[in-house]
């Protein structure tokens, strides 16, 4: 009996607290920048696609909802021929973002992606690619990678010596 009264009293006290609920969708929720919502593919500072089609996001995905196919341009730069995320399976765990070695795939603070048809939750690269660097500005993978993919010549990257002259025997 006493506990019932105590409960009612506590509920009564809540009348004077600040409201936690908001009038969504009229009022938008404020999310932290690191909130794990919609998945996007970002671009590097030079405007190129950051994704190099390494398949690490796909293999890290616990529900296997990412499928892609890597391809190359004439200069040897890798990019995804297609990049598909089945959001009807996605659990927004962010493992793909953690696995991504080029900061290409990022989860952003946006969750408004409900659809009436499940088929409409299958996103292709055109739907995922945004014209921004997202959360990690200034990083261009091909500038620090060893290979020449049309971004920088061999030996001109950060912390790289010029290519070895193999005809030289000097120490």
């Amino acid at each position, binding site marked *: 009996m006493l506990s019932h009264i105590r409960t009612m009293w506590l509920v009564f006290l809540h009348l004077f607290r600040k409201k936690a609920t908001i009038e969504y969708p009229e009022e938008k929720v404020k999310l932290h920048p690191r909130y794990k919502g919609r998945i996007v593919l970002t671009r590097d500072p030079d405007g190129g696609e950051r994704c190099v089609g390494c398949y690490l996001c796909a293999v890290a995905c616990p529900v*296997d*909802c990412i499928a892609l196919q890597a391809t190359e341009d004439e200069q040897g730069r*890798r990019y995804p021929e297609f990049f598909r995320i089945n959001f009807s*399976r996605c659990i927004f765990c962010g493992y793909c973002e953690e696995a991504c*070695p080029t900061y290409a795939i990022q989860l952003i603070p946006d969750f408004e992606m409900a659809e009436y048809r499940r088929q409409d*939750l299958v996103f292709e690269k055109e739907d995922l690619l945004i014209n921004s660097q997202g959360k990690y500005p200034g990083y261009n993978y091909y500038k620090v990678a*060893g290979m020449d993919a049309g971004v920088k010549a061999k030996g001109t990257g950060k912390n790289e010596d010029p290519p070895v002259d193999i005809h030289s025997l000097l120490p």
Partner: protein
Amino acid sequence: MPTIRIDDKDYEVRDGKNLLESCLALGFDLPYFCWHPAMGSVGACRQCAVKVFKDEQDTRGRLVMSCMEPVKEGLRLSIVDPAAKAFREQVIEWLMTNHPHDCPVCDEGGSCHLQDMTVMTGHDYRRYQYRKRTYQNQYLGPFIHHEMNRCIQCYRCVRFYRDIAGGEDLNVYAAHDHIYFGREKEGVLQSPFSGNLAEICPTGVFTDKTLKAHYTRKWDLTNAGSVCPHCSLGCNIFAGERYGEIRCITNRFNSEVNGYFLCDKGRFGYEFVNSENRIRQPLIRGRLVDAVSEDQLLEYLRHLTGNGNIIGIGSPRASVETNFSLMQLVGIDNFYQGVNEDTAFLQKRVTDILESGTLRSNSLRDIESSDAILVLGEDIWNTAPIMALTVRQSVMKTAFSQTVQQISLPSWNDIAVRELTQEARGYLANAGTSGSPLDKLATHHVQAAPDDIARMGYAIAAHLDPSLPPLSKQENELTARTGEIALALSLARKPAIISGISACNEAILKAAYNIAWALKRMGKEVGISYVLPECNSMGLALTKAPSFEKALGRLERNTGTTVIVAEQDIYRCLPEEQAEMFFSKCGKIVVLDVLHNRTTERAHVLIPSASFAEGDGSFVNNEGRIQRFYKVYAPENNNVIEGWKWLERIGGGNERIDQLHTMIEKGLSQFAGISTEAPAAGFRIHGEAVPREPHRYSGRTAMWAHLQVSEPKPHQDNNAPLSFTMEGYKGIPPAAIIPFYWAPGWNSVQALNKYQEIPGGKLTGGNPGVRVLNESAEPRGDFFTDMPEAFSARRGRWLLLPAYHLLGSGEMSMESRGIAELSPEPYLALSMQDAVAMNATTGSTMVVQIMGKAYSLPLKIAETLTDGLAVVPAGLPAMPVLPFGSWVEIVKK
């Protein structure tokens, strides 16, 4: 078996091995780079350090490279010793100071030995903050991609390329920490075994360029064990599929067949599976709408096959099951081999010899362990490349074993043994119509006309066996060498004789038999190998069906006969006029095939059949080993199913391969054992099937989501104990059904160590495959005595012979872009003297006249060719089928 003590525990190990091999065989994870089971130890990478203790009292111990330390009774070592572990980690750290930040875009990633070893040693953070060394890459041809920055200087590539494959155009250049592995100039790698660099290289310096064109990580491939469909050796392969396409071929180890290596045709010849030229829809031509459904097709065919006037043409590239099902459908008397009369005759000679049980049919492993080899009249470099590679290893190993007998040196100590052996080689005699790269290794090499090679063979046998009639005085200079060859063979413990049918000469086959039988009678452990043209030539020849020309005779007698052709292009086995005549005499023509070709154009009914990648079946290799290949993936297109399934459907039979095998054993006793070649379809381990997909397979719920967001049910496999999913038994399955190599911590192909009894030894539980041609316990035989007449050049006429090209002569492999790029243009080769006599030079247009038809070909002068022989490339798409082994007229245009 000595006992060694590893980390205070005793283990029994095999004698004569090094510590690294022994530790790996015991299941320890010990990192290494430069050591390879097929190449021995050089101690270059310093990665496999362990601590060895002098005795029980010794607590300090000393660091040694385990690959350079022999096993000794009572040896004490520690793998987990802190100093040894720190040493191994530091070595990796040094290697990684220059290793580029490439893993995301490197094709090796996910199957990279360097990645595995880095994780294994525990090195996970780069402390070195300074600059990395860089290199320029080279163009190395259409098969191999070069990215030199990734090199860790283990020397495996040049050791494989030069020491194992005998190539000369890949080498190491520059000095100190600038050493460079590549060619002197950019260009196509010349060795036909260059593809193995992709597997040998522990990192991503050399990678598969054809895989790069549609790149997929190893963990994303659906795999199954398969058998290479490009030559008669039946090398074991893994084929990997993604998105309905075969993406790459990798080596599947079988210590009795291909060991660790594949040729470039086998590795890169897979693109026909993905070709635009595939047949994908059943057709009944001449209707308003040609394309028909399966039901319409079967109804039509049942009606067509019901009347009894029907024959079947089997194929040397169709599986044993397809040929048998066709034989069952049309009746055993109405089944013919889809090869021409000459080939059928030669193949019958081969099967007669091997089936008699007089001689052992050599496996490649037998050849490798032989100490003297005679190649008689077969260009194995081009017709059976892995056999040529094996012959090379045999010749080297014979010399090495002689070296290590003289001085106490373990055979795995590669550099020391090679250094001491210098230029010494084991015995090889190579006799062929044209020169071969093997000649460099051969003690004796002979270029002569086929008849003269056969005479030489007969003469060698006569030297070896006194019961043979002594040779009459021979004018021919060839016979001068026969005594030396006979002597070398008679001194050997285990001689091997290799021959084949590509010289189109029966006497050569007989001569090879005579030599082998003479050696057998001397008590030698001799074996014989006959190379055949196609992957299942032996399987077709063993059916003993009559040849194609017999079918032609029959069609002339009976009009309106329905002909079912299973997976053979008639225009590739007969000259055009004969093929045309054949088709004009047929009633309805039913063709099952993989790719569109000229025969499928003539078909009234065309049925798509599965390639080796989409189908189950078995091939019999030249040794007589039945080997099973498994369906790698189930194509979206339901029409693409195995030839035998279509034929069984027409006949209303069963579609279970196990039941079919039982019927084959009942119907054709020569295939007894086929039902034991692999575990039955119902085989399970702890109730689980073996998954075709690695447990890290990605994208299952998104791969096909653009078509239908609900995932389809995985395809069920009724014919194999393998599943098309990533769920199932994760351990090591029986050897015949291994779908890929993976072990915890070992993602690269080097995981193979865990699947073998000892590194380099046979697969755990025995190698797959069942031999059907066995030596009898009490062999009895006779010599052939019909020696041919010596070859003499004729005036104005030439003996036409085929030249097989590793890259070019294969019907299917030419669909691969890289192979087509490297294949030769048509030519006609004549000897220098013949060319001069006709006032022709290289490039002159020559006209070959055959049965009233003229073929123009550019001249190539072959220095070593015998006068009176004319050689043209066989099997090129641009080349007409010519009557090889016959005399033709040649004039200069």
